[in-house]
């Protein structure tokens, strides 16, 4: 029977708890439902201003990338103006960039697709490495130009190469493309509080009303377009200050 010795358990635990985001506060709950006014944990709006994770070069590359993954059109901004690069920057600077809370213990071994990602490379490091490799590739293949300096068609061809694996950036084939595409689309459609979906442009584009919580008056109104514009957690154009 695999029953670990208690000493091992405690030693491992002390390590796991030190500086861990999982550290909480054990509580004894008795007699009544607890209440405390300062218990809510609202989301933090991203801080405006400069890049928190990307260097200026990286940022320009990511802005160029997200603007081709989601190009602007006459009605809706592209990934860049929607803030997708800002979103990714803030995400990479935070817990997501470090894979905080995920199972990060080794050994790291290559598995099957069905076993899921097994790379020890965290998202922030992945971007750093892949963006450097991307510009290296572009300089070699496009006469010394960085990705941001390419024309739209060339940019699209590079992205297609990343997607189909013909352009390798050092990591697992296509892995950076997948990561970037997922992050870009999530930033585009997430609440604007996280930096993307500026002015709820993505929600307006598709007709999603956002963070609304009461559709009782609408459940019975079949096949009618919902008339109200979207709202975000902190985006409420109707709340003009009284």
């Amino acid at each position, binding site marked *: 029977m695999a029953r670990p010795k208690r000493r091992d358990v405690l030693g491992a635990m002390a390590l796991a708890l030190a500086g861990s985001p999982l550290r909480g506060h054990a509580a004894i709950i008795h007699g009544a439902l607890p209440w405390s*006014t300062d218990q*809510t944990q609202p989301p933090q709006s991203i801080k405006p201003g400069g890049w928190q994770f990307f260097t200026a070069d990286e940022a320009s590359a990511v802005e160029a990338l997200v603007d081709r993954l989601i190009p602007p059109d006459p009605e809706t901004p592209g990934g860049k103006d929607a803030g997708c690069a800002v979103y990714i920057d803030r995400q990479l600077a935070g817990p997501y960039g470090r894979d905080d809370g995920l199972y990060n213990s080794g050994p790291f071994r290559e598995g099957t697709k069905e076993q899921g990602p097994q790379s020890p490379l965290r998202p922030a490091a992945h971007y750093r490495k892949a963006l450097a490799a991307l510009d290296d590739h572009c300089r070699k293949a496009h006469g010394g130009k960085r990705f941001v300096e390419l024309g739209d068609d060339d940019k699209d061809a590079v992205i297609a190469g990343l997607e189909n694996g013909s352009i390798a950036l050092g990591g697992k084939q296509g892995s950076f493309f997948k990561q970037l595409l997922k992050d870009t689309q999530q930033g585009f459609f997430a609440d604007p509080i996280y930096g993307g979906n500026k002015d709820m442009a993505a929600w307006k584009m598709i007709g999603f009303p956002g963070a*609304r919580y*009461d559709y009782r008056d609408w459940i019975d109104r079949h096949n009618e377009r919902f008339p109200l514009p979207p*709202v975000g957690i902190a985006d409420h154009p109707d*709340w*003009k200050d*009284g």
Partner: protein
Amino acid sequence: MRKAVAAVAVVAASTVAALAGNNGQDFAQIERGRYLAAAGDCAGCHTAVGGADFAGGMAIETPFGKVVAANITPDRETGIGAWSDDDFVRALTEGVARDGTHLYPAMPYPYYTKVSRGDVLAIRAYLTTVPAVHNPVTSDQLPFPLNQRADMAVWNKLYFHSGEYRPVAGKSAVWNRGGYLVEGLMHCGACHTPKNTAGGDYLDRPLKGYALQGWFAPDISGDTRRGIGSWSADDLVTYLKTGHNRFAAATGPMADVVAKSSSKLTDADLRDVATYLKDQPGLEGEEEAAQASPVDAGNSQMQAGAAIYTDECSACHTPKGTGVLNLFPSLAGAPSVQSADPTSLIRVVLGGTRSVATDQAPTGPAMPAFAWLLDDRRAAAVLTYIRNSWGNAAAAVTAAQVQSERADLAKRTE
């Protein structure tokens, strides 16, 4: 399993011991005393959070500083075990302790003075049966000169009117029983009657509402807009019994009152209380002109408030402000929403609150805090909207009022 059986045996033994220890005191008197102690909400102050029953130590916030409730268990040294019955009666009805010092009126002797000697002695009889706890309490933490207890003699001359409740001729026995409870043991006016700067009641404005401890204890007279005039007697009984009715959920200090006191009273007594309160004249004539018509729905504060209400409030309180019975209080027509003083409303919006849970209504639903989302102007806007929609009418709330309450809330630790 074994332990459960053992626990039952221990309880039985201690009950026997308690009875025997009272030298044949009347069991019925003790039980009546238990009931009256609940009506007087003795535990509300004299039992600290997590502390032993009646062993004191709870700090009571007054406009002048904190007063700590005494140990009233039968412990001879730190409690009232050494007190005679007369000592006890004098403390309750005259505000004078056994050693002759004056109590502060945080101990509501200006109300308890209305209680009959028989009822006071029943409470005394009950308190002799609770476990004695050794717990020395330093009761006053007031700053000088308010810590000079002798000053209380002067205060008493000005504001204290000694004497048992006298039934009002021409009113029914039901009404007078209600009056006896409201003006005496239940000491409703201690929170709900406006007070002068010395803490004395404005006797000409009984039960018209008063702000204390960061809350506004609302008007509970028969005023139809701000008071409980629009409530039926059943509404009032239900509220006091369960903490909830179709208009309101008890929260803040009133949640404690319901939990420890009013929910334990008989329906008959609560009905008498309702009869009395509903018959108390309101302020209609006096202030109605100023507040009878709602703030114009077209003004920009009301429009912003409506938008905030739709996004943040209607999913619980419903788009028409009608709420959900026992879960989300109705805002439409609710007296507390239309209080002259919006302190409680601001506090609830900023800090959130949990309503009381009782055996009859155990849910204890809570309202989330919005301080992080609504700045002063926005909180003022949504409150102004709520106070002036669906037939409601009350003065607009200002950003300055919200700012002041926000600062007060930040200092509080509860």
